[in-house]
């Protein structure tokens, strides 16, 4: 008990030292905040939030971030950030951190409460962005003690958006008011919400317990039901948008993975089973570039992808060209044997990566600008990483299209695809075209790896999970036609996501495969077949 008392005193002084007027946090409050056991803590926090003194914020933030530590040997409370301790009493740095630092543990529940308390205190901040964020954080708050503060904030608020948000917060807080008219008004105003949390609150009002409604008043139930229907309608719309988006996103990933294959397969008829491993090489290159940037230019870390994109293209292209020169070119005209040889190559590449980088996955961190998402509606967040990937695959597609239709190499490639012998007769060096083209296809696989590293695992088996899908896309789309690949990828992505919503991931995938099998029966050459006059094509 003695110790706690001591810590409490220290905390109080510390509050002074880091610029908190002692008046903001009374010794009793601090006592409770530092003690584990959530009830007392929560009460203390509520009273702090209700008091509305902004000067309590720094200490609360330090608590939320896990930076508050106590030391028994020093009998002190420290705020420790990056290995440097600030003595909370004096506000001066501590020369040497004691061994027995013990963190004041803030678990999920407490952190959530802290966030709400801090947000309440920030409602009257001078910065619009801070106020907006605070108002958003409070959307699910139901602690009615906060009402006066929220009322005060609404009165002071000049920004219409924030004001609307705050009014909804007020409605939440008024739901349990004793005045029926206030309650009804609050419930009705909740109908305009786009927040999934609102649905939770309304559902609770309509819940039954032991056959009896929790809410005895039928008028209130009626109003709640009406608001609920409105909210649900809005949420459903959001979910639809989310579904389409995830379909497009999956499609863009399939497109990236299959595009390179479409080129190598379309041109040379080479079934490259190591295509997945070229994707993996792209992802590992991204990992290596990321580490290099982090080690050499940490300031530029957020832009490492700018270096990783060309690097993964180059590395995968180089590996691909080496494969073509070393193995594949000896097997032209024997597509099924290429399949076996490239399968062997893929085994070797997987094991090589496993030997070099280890069997475990490696870390690829998203740059800050790719984390998080755009909040379209409050229940639909479109992640930046996926938006970027959709854009990226569109860009890659455009570049490939330009390369194939607007360059000399592209002209040759198309020529060789359509009629190899004739192209050769016209003086096209088909062997060299093959190498370059294979390099291009492999490079695109590398780009796909770079993109995939942003949303999934980077491990030796990365490529294996995409190889079957890529083949399906290429075959479905038809060989030698970019448009076919695009339609096939997008179609498969959207259909897959749509079915997944109905029947679960496994059945969706099976259905898609069955669909492909049946489709091929109808159009054995895929959606877009090259027209030709070969009897034995």
């Amino acid at each position, binding site marked *: 008990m003695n110790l706690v008392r001591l810590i409490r005193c220290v905390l109080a002084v510390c509050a002074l030292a880091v610029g908190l007027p002692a008046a903001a946090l009374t010794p009793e409050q601090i006592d409770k905040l530092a003690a584990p056991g959530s009830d007392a803590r929560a009460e203390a926090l509520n009273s702090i939030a209700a008091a509305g003194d902004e000067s309590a914020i720094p200490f609360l933030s330090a608590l939320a971030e896990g930076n508050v530590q106590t030391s028994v040997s020093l009998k002190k409370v420290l705020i420790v950030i990056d290995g440097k301790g600030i003595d909370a009493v004096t506000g001066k740095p501590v020369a040497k951190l004691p061994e027995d630092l013990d963190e004041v*543990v803030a678990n999920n529940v407490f952190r959530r409460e802290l966030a709400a308390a801090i947000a309440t205190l920030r409602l009257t901040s001078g910065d619009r962005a801070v106020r907006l964020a605070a108002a958003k954080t409070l959307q699910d708050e139901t602690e009615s003690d906060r009402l006066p503060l929220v009322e005060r904030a609404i009165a002071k608020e000049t920004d219409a958006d924030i004001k609307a948000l705050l009014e909804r917060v007020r409605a939440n807080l008024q739901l349990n008011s004793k005045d029926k008219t206030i309650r009804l008004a609050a419930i009705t105003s909740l109908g305009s919400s786009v927040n*999934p949390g609102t649905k939770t609150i309304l*559902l609770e009002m309509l819940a039954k317990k032991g056959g009896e409604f929790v809410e005895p008043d039928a008028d209130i139930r009626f109003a709640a039901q009406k608001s609920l229907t409105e909210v649900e309608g809005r949420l459903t719309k959001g979910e639809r948008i989310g579904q389409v988006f995830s379909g497009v996103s999956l499609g863009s990933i399939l497109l990236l993975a299959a595009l390179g294959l479409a080129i190598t397969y379309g041109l040379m008829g080479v079934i490259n089973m190591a295509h997945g491993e070229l994707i993996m090489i792209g992802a590992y290159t991204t990992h290596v570039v990321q580490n290099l940037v982090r080690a050499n230019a940490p300031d530029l870390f957020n832009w490492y992808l700018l270096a990783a994109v060309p690097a993964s293209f180059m590395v995968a292209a180089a590996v691909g060209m080496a494969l073509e020169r070393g193995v594949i070119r000896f097997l032209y005209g024997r597509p099924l044997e290429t399949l076996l040889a490239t399968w062997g190559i893929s085994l070797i590449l997987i094991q090589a990566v496993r030997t070099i980088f280890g069997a475990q*996955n490696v870390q690829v961190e998203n740059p800050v600008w790719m984390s998080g998402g755009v909040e379209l509606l409050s229940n639909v967040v479109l992640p930046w990483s996926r938006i970027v990937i959709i854009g990226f695959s569109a860009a890659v597609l455009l570049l490939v299209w330009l390369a194939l239709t607007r360059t000399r190499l592209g002209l040759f490639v198309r020529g060789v695809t359509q009629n190899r012998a004739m192209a050769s007769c016209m003086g096209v060096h088909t062997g060299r075209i093959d190498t370059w083209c294979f390099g291009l296809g492999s490079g695109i696989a590398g780009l796909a790896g770079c993109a995939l590293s942003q949303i999934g695992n980077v491990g030796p*088996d990365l490529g294996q*999970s995409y190889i079957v899908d890529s083949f399906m896309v290429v075959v479905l789309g038809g060989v030698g036609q970019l448009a076919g690949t695009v339609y096939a990828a997008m179609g498969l992505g959207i259909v897959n996501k749509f079915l997944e919503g109905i029947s679960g991931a496994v059945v969706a995938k099976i259905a898609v495969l069955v669909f492909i099998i049946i489709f091929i029966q109808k159009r054995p050459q895929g959606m877009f077949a090259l027209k030709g006059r070969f009897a034995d094509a």
Partner: protein
Amino acid sequence: MQRRGFLKQLAVGAAVAAAFSYGPYAQAADTIKVGILHSLSGTMAISETVLKDVALMAIEEINAKGGVMGKKLEPVVVDPASNWPLFAEKAKQLIGQDKVSVVFGCWTSVSRKSVLPVFKELNGLLFYPVQYEGEELEKNVFYTGAAPNQQAIPATEYLMSKEGGGAKRFVLLGTDYVYPRTTNKILRSFLKSKGIADKDIDEKYTPFGHSDYQTIVADIKKFSAGGKTAVISTINGDSNVPFYKELGNQGLKATDVPVVAFSVGEEELRGVDTKPLVGHLAAWNYFMSLKNPANDEFKKKWAAYAKAKKLPGADKPLTNDPMEATYIGIYMWKQAVEKAKSTDVNKVIPAVAGQTFKAPSGFTIKMDENNHHLHRAVFIGEVQADGQFKVVWKTPGPVKAAPWSPFIAGNDKKKGEPE
């Protein structure tokens, strides 16, 4: 030509067949052979490779201290390549050909099920180091990982407690195989006993290697609008990364919908940017972040070993629960052999019962006298930004394993020991 060719070819075939009939295996008398049966290639290599390494470390350590009964241990490492029939074949080879005294190995339930008949027939001894679904008790196996009541049930209780957020609705999300299925079956029955209605439990399964969690996360979001929700994830190791990334991206925070995972440890988080995951939970019997002398020593030894052997990832040596379980298993076996003064399986099995070991988790762990499982303490940790876990709750002491979960009908008649 065709005819003669055929004859000779057949002879070649026969010769090849004969070449396999006896291998170059001879047993040296002055060593004790120890089999290590972990996948070093294929899908499970990601998790199992490090168990092979930690086993080799423990063996090296025991040998440096003079071995077992004056004999050095000789590890026999094989690669069953994440291929289940190959697991059985390799087990046969280890016990039948190499005559190993004990095998440390397996990770997935199916690999364990695949080798079980072999161990029973040839009377081998297996130490299985991974948390699993229970519903099994074999004389030839010692289970050093957690049974459901040593991991899943305490974690769920925590989520329902006020401290853990007082969850009222649960999403039981898993990869579609036996461990998640069983665990969820047990949990569903447990939750019902706590008064949670069926409509508040959403059970979902994804295929192996599933990497697109957009729909699932959107569904969780939708479900969580119906009341305070927690997710209990039994997603298989590798699929967790895309799942967590999606959670972070769609803005589902641990403070709103906490996810507690049973297959996510320090190793699994190695490849993840953990910042968006902070606050999500895992339940284990060991965390690397535990502070006690035994763990400090274990971590130090592992770091030194990884560095000396130039293991991949040695720049950031990590320890996790199955590694600790492997380590405990090897030492318990060593102590049992010394107690039995023999490596004979029939003598070692009774000697393992009741062994104790001062484990890195900070407790003196005991092998139960009857049920072949360890008594283990349960920790619940929250993910930190550095990929480590901060313990937010723990049991006061070791918990006895209940391999036959009382929440599954008919198990009350089961005996708590191998039949």
